[in-house]
C-alpha cells in the first residue's frame, strides 16, 4: 500500500530564517504566484495534500504570545482564501487550510470549507485549531484569556474549555455540511419549487459555547464531508482528534515514540467511543534535504541566533535516508507523514524530485494519482448525509 504524504506549507518554510536561505523568494510571500508555484510542484510530486498554516495573530518565536522580532517572517494570508485561489490551478492535490475554532464562527467556517470543496471539486480538507493566546483574544475583544503559563491550573482549564469548544465547532460544521441532502435541489417546474424543503435540515445544535440553527446556505460539498485533520501532542488533543477528525498529525521523535503515540491515539479512540474508520495517523517531520542539509540548517540557525526549536523531529539528510526512516517508522502504525519543508522551495522540490522517486522505487508510493477526490485518496468512503432519509 502506498504511503500517504502531505506537505505543510507556511511562509518561506519552517525554519524562522528560511526567508534568508539561498533560492528563497521572501519578497513574494504575499503573492498568488509564489503559492501557485509551490502547490503545482507538490501536485507534480503526486502528494496527497498540502496544508496551509494560519492564526489570528502575528507569528512569534514565543509560544505564550507576541515577540518584537523583525528578522523573521511576519504576516500571512487567510488560509481558506489562499487554498481557494489555488484550486483552479490544480486538479488532483488536496487543499487543507487551517482555521481557528476559538474566534471564528462555526457557520462561516462550514460554508468556507464547503465552498472550497465546491471550487476544487472534492479536494478540500480542514484543519481546525484552538487559539489559546491572550493577545489573539484581544484582537476580538470578546473574551479575556489568562497568560499562557502551562503550569497554572487556570490555563489547564482554559485549554480544556477551548478543546471542548473546538469539538462542538467540528460537530456543528459537520452537521451543517450534511444539512442539505445531496438531492435537495429539485427544480420542479410543476410546483415552482427550486428545492425540496424536506431535504433541508435544521441542525439545531445547542452546546455550552454556542447554538447554531442551520441549515447551511451552501449545498452539500462534493465530498459530502471534506477531510478533517488536526495536530495533536497530548491526550486531550488526541481525544479531540478521535471525536471529529479523519487524520491526526502527531510528533514522535523516534520509532519507539511513534509506537507509543499510535497506542495513545487508539486509546483515545476507545475513550471517546469513536466508530469506524480509525484515524489516519500521520507523523509530522521538519525536513532539510540533500547532501548539504545539515550545513544549510546550521547556517540558518546561526542567522536566527539559535537552533531551530520544533515540536516535531527535525530531519537533516538525503531523500534516500528520509525514505528509510519513513518506511521504518511506518511499522509503528503510521499511515503517512506530513512533511514540513525547512526552506521553500528547496526542500519541497527535494521531496517531490528526490524523496518521491526514492519511495516509488521501493514500491511505497503511487506512480500516478488514482482519484481527484481527497477522501477517496485516503480510502474514506463518501458518507451518506446524516439527515438523509433512506430512499
Amino acid at each position: 500500500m502506498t504511503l500517504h504524504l502531505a506537505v505543510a506549507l507556511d511562509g518561506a518554510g519552517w525554519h524562522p530564517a528560511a526567508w534568508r536561505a539561498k533560492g528563497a523568494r521572501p519578497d513574494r510571500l504575499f503573492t498568488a504566484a509564489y503559492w501557485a508555484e509551490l502547490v503545482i510542484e507538490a501536485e507534480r510530486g503526486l502528494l496527497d495534500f498540502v496544508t496551509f498554516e494560519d492564526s489570528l495573530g502575528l507569528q512569534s518565536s514565543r509560544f505564550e504570545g507576541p515577540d518584537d522580532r523583525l528578522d523573521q517572517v511576519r504576516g500571512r494570508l487567510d488560509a481558506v482564501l489562499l487554498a481557494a485561489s489555488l484550486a483552479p490551478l490544480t486538479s488532483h492535490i488536496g487543499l487543507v487550510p487551517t482555521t481557528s475554532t476559538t474566534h471564528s464562527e462555526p457557520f462561516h467556517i462550514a460554508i468556507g470549507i464547503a465552498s472550497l470543496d465546491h471550487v476544487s471539486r472534492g479536494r478540500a480538507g480542514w484543519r481546525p485549531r484552538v487559539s489559546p493566546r491572550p493577545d489573539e483574544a484581544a484582537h476580538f475583544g470578546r473574551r479575556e484569556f489568562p497568560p499562557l503559563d502551562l503550569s497554572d491550573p487556570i490555563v489547564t482549564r482554559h485549554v480544556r474549555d477551548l478543546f471542548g469548544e473546538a469539538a462542538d465547532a467540528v460537530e456543528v460544521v459537520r452537521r451543517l455540511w450534511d444539512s442539505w441532502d445531496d438531492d435537495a435541489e429539485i427544480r420542479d417546474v410543476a410546483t415552482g419549487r427550486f428545492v425540496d424543503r424536506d431535504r433541508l435540515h435544521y441542525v439545531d445544535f445547542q452546546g455550552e459555547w454556542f447554538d447554531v440553527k442551520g441549515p447551511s446556505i451552501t449545498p452539500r460539498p462534493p465530498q459530502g464531508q471534506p477531510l478533517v485533520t488536526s495536530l495533536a501532542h497530548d491526550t486531550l488533543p488526541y481525544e479531540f482528534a478521535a471525536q471529529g477528525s479523519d487524520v491526526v498529525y502527531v510528533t514522535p521523535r523516534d520509532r519507539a515514540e511513534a509506537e507509543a503515540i499510535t497506542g495513545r491515539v487508539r486509546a483515545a479512540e476507545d475513550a471517546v467511543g469513536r466508530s469506524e474508520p480509525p484515524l489516519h495517523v500521520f507523523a509530522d517531520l521538519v525536513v532539510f534535504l540533500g547532501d548539504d542539509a545539515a550545513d544549510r540548517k546550521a547556517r540558518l540557525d546561526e542567522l536566527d541566533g539559535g537552533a531551530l526549536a520544533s515540536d516535531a523531529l527535525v530531519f537533516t539528510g538525503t531523500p534516500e535516508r528520509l525514505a528509510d526512516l519513513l518506511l521504518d517508522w511506518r511499522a509503528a502504525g503510521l499511515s503517512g507523514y506530513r512533511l514540513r519543508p525547512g526552506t521553500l522551495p528547496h526542500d519541497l522540490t527535494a521531496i517531490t524530485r528526490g524523496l518521491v522517486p526514492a519511495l516509488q522505487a521501493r514500491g511505497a508510493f503511487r506512480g500516478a494519482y488514482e482519484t481527484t477526490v481527497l477522501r477517496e485518496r485516503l480510502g474514506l468512503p463518501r458518507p451518506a448525509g446524516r439527515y438523509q432519509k433512506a430512499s
Partner: protein
Amino acid sequence: MTKQIHLAAHFPGVNNTTVWSDPRSGSQIDFESFRHLAQTAERGKFDFFFLAEGLRLREMKGRIHDLDVVGRPESLTVLSALSAVTTRLGLAATVNSTFNEPYEVARRLASLDHLSGGRAAWNVVTSYDAFTGENFRRGGFLAEEDRYTRAAEFLQTVRELWDSWAPDAVAADAATGAFVRPGGITPFRHQGRHFDISGAFNVPRGPQGHPVIIQAGDSDEGREFAASAADVIFSRHSKLEEGRAFYRDVKRRLAAYGRRDEDLKILPAVTYVLGDTEAEAAERAAEIRRAQVSPQTAIAFVEGVWGRDLSGHDPDGPLPDLEPELEEGVSKGRAQFRGDRGAVAAKWRALAEEKNLSIRELVIEVAAPQTFIGTPVSVAAEIDRFVQTDAADGFIFVPHLTPGGLDDLVDKVVPILQEKGVFRADYTGPTLRDHLGLAPRPGPSGLAPHPKETS
C-alpha cells in the same frame, strides 16, 4: 463633460430574477458557472463581479422558502478562486458587519486583495435580525437602530487595521536581516462603543491599500453611511426619475464629509432584454417576466405583503378580499417585506383595480421589473442616457440566466458603448480602484488621510 460608464456583473440567485426553469439555465453552485460569468464580465472590460450574501435560508409561514433559488457558496472563497482565472476584473464580496468581527474581515479582504493583485471590494451589509442571528454565536444581539452605528465603527476599525502596516513594511532584506522594516507594523488600539480591541494586525497592506467599499443600504442612515465612507453604492433605484432623485440625494450628502461627487459611484441593480427589433425584445421580456413569476411565486409575494396564508387563492384570480395582517408577518429573512406592508398592500390593490390585474399579473407588474428592453442600439443609448443625465454612474447587471445571461450584453451592447467613447476599450490599470477612477488610498505615513479617519 461626457461621463464614463461603470459596469458590473451580479451572479444571480436567491430571488425570482433567476429563471431556473429555462433549459439553458446552469448550476448555481458549480465553479464553472462562476468562471463563465466572471470571464464574460472581464471580456466585456467590466469594473467588477459581484456576489451577494444571505446568512440564513429565508422562510415563509414558518418553513424554508422552497421557491427561492438558494444554495450559494461563501463569497470570498469563490472570489479567491476566481482571482486565479481572471486578471483585471474587480471581485466584490458581500459581507455582513453584524455577524462578523473586524479583525477577521480585515484580514480576509486584505488577503483577497493580495491574491488578486488589487481587485478586492467589500459590500458592507447590515442584516441584524435575530432570525439570521440564530446561526451565530451571539444570536440576535443587535438592535435595528444600531445596525449602522456598528457598521460604521466596524468599517472604521477595519481601516485602522489596514493602515497599521506601512505600505513598505515588508522589507524582506536578506542582507540586513530585516524581514519587517523597523516601525513597519504599528500596534493598533480601537476603543469604541462596539469594539474594544488591540494588538497587531497580521496581513500586510494590500495592493489597493484599502479595498473598495460598497454599500447597499437605502434608509436615511444607510445613505449617510454610504456618503461618509463608501466608494460605491449598490442601489435599487433603477428607474430614470427615482434614480435621479436618489443620485442627487446621496451626492449632496458628500460635501459634509469633505468628499467630491466622483468619490462615490452610484450603480443601480438592473436587468435587460435584447431583441433584433423593439417588438421582439418586448415579447421576450414579457416571456421572461412570466417565467420569473410562477403561479406559486405570485401567491408567495402577496402572502409576504399581506402577512397571511393565501395558499387557497387562485393566482389567476383577483387579490384576496382580506385586510393585511400587519403584526407578525409570514416571511422571515427578507428585507423586502420589512417596510410598511399596509401601504404596499393598498398600493397594490389600487393598481390591480385600476388595470384589472389578476394576482399573477399584478406581481409580474410590481415584482419583475426590467430596466432596459430593446435592440442593442437602443439599450446602449438608454444606458448612456441614464448615466449622462445623472440617474446613475453605471450599473450592476443582474442576468436572468446562469451562467450565460450576460453573453449578449457583452457581445452586442458593450461594443456600441465603446464606440460611443463612454466605456473603456480596455483596462487602463491593474486595480479595481483604477477601474472606478478612485484615488489610490494613501498609506498611514502617506498624504491626505481619508476624512473619516481623522474624526
